[in-house]
């Protein structure tokens, strides 16, 4: 369970999170929508401790992420995150990309890590690209590799930060299909996205962020079907 309590975060003068309260249950798929600068991506990087917070707290399975003495490296093993940029490690093959962290961080044997990597890469449809270097692959393939790389750590939660935003339009589908598959398998996911159709299909709940505030949160039928917040109405009208 991820518990977010009254979290505030500023970059200099700009307050990007103005007291966020949110709880994500095991097995839930939560999508976060909203305009750019609404604070949704910042929240994700606060959850895995890549960013600090100024007030409030974030608790993952009972561990306070930003408390002194929290072993963030250990905590991050259970929080997979995939970014807008694919961040493939260019000097490693696809297989090596996925094997690296399980071997170096989890201390798995090469054989063990390879078996897991092959399984995850096959799962995301890259079973035939094991020996290829990332520079030889499309953006969609690199992004699916990044997903497999995160999954190879056997995380309890997956955080997706606008993972289709840097993709050519014709490549968006294959990555969304991968996310749909994970959702249907019961993975706990928080997805920051601009893909409204996707959000409507896969989410248990959808949250709408506006200027650092979570303006509305509801099941997708309700949020998209009968939005209450005026800003959300404007936002949905603009995106449709």
């Amino acid at each position, binding site marked *: 369970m991820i518990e977010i309590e009254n979290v505030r975060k500023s970059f200099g003068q700009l307050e990007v999170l103005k007291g966020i309260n949110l709880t994500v249950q095991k097995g839930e798929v939560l999508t976060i929508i909203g305009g750019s600068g609404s604070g949704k991506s910042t929240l994700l990087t606060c959850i895995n401790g*890549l960013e600090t917070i100024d007030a409030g707290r974030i608790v993952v399975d009972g561990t306070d992420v930003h408390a002194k003495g929290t072993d963030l490296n250990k905590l991050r093993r259970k929080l997979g995150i995939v*970014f807008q940029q694919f*961040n493939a*490690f260019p*000097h490693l093959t696809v297989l090596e990309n996925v094997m690296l*962290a399980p071997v170096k961080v989890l201390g798995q044997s090469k054989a063990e890590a390879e078996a897991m990597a092959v399984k995850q890469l096959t799962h995301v449809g890259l079973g035939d690209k094991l020996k290829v*270097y990332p520079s030889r692959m499309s953006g969609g393939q690199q992004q699916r590799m990044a997903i497999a790389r995160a999954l190879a750590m056997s995380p309890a939660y997956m955080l997706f930060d606008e993972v289709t935003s840097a993709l050519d339009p014709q490549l968006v589908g294959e990555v969304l299909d991968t996310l749909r598959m994970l959702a249907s398998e019961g993975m706990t996911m928080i997805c920051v996205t601009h893909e409204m159709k996707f959000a409507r299909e896969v989410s248990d709940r959808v949250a709408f962020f506006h200027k650092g505030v979570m303006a509305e949160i509801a099941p997708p039928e309700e949020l998209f079907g009968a939005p209450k917040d005026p800003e959300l109405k404007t936002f949905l009208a603009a995106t449709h």
Partner: protein
Amino acid sequence: MFSYNFHWNQAFKALPQMLDGALVTLQIALLSMAIGLVVALALTLFRLSGNRILNGFATVWVEIARNTPALFQIYMAHFGLGSFGIHLSPYTALLVGIAFNNAGYLAENFRGALKAIPETQTRAGRSLGMTPLQAFRYIVMPQMLRIAFLPATNQMVWAILMTSLGVTVGMNTDLAGVTQALNAVSFRTFEFFALAAVIYYVIAKAVTLAARLAATRMFRY
């Protein structure tokens, strides 16, 4: 009027001796590069550490290495340290002086290379649970070494040529030292040094070509 008579035979007879010297030259250059690489990596980590003392130490090293004559650096290793009771043999002093110089230049190469690697690479590594050092070791460093590899071969060539400064601290077993000794007894200055220059040239070229070949083999991405 041009009245010099060439005596190439004397020089060619001394060729085996000079080639032995060339081996010593190559040995010093390789060793100084190996030491320089390790120190340059340490200096790079110091600079990344965020610790002001370590960062300052690395900056001072790089500044001195790059902005003072190599001859001065080798002199300091021999006579400078000698003043403090640390007496290095000509061989060791030459090695230390060149390694000092190499480390400074290589550290600067690494700094340039690091700028070409996006910060998001480290971020991705940290997200997978790596410590900062692990992210550097397994993700950033291999990319950095690749980018810095060809510039570093320039430094290797420079190291080979710098060994010739050893004669100023009494080095007499490397190519320049051997040549100088032969010159002192025969006065065939032009012949001996011309031959030495050819040998330096061949070694330097061979190193450059070998590095290019190695690069295409090693870096397949």
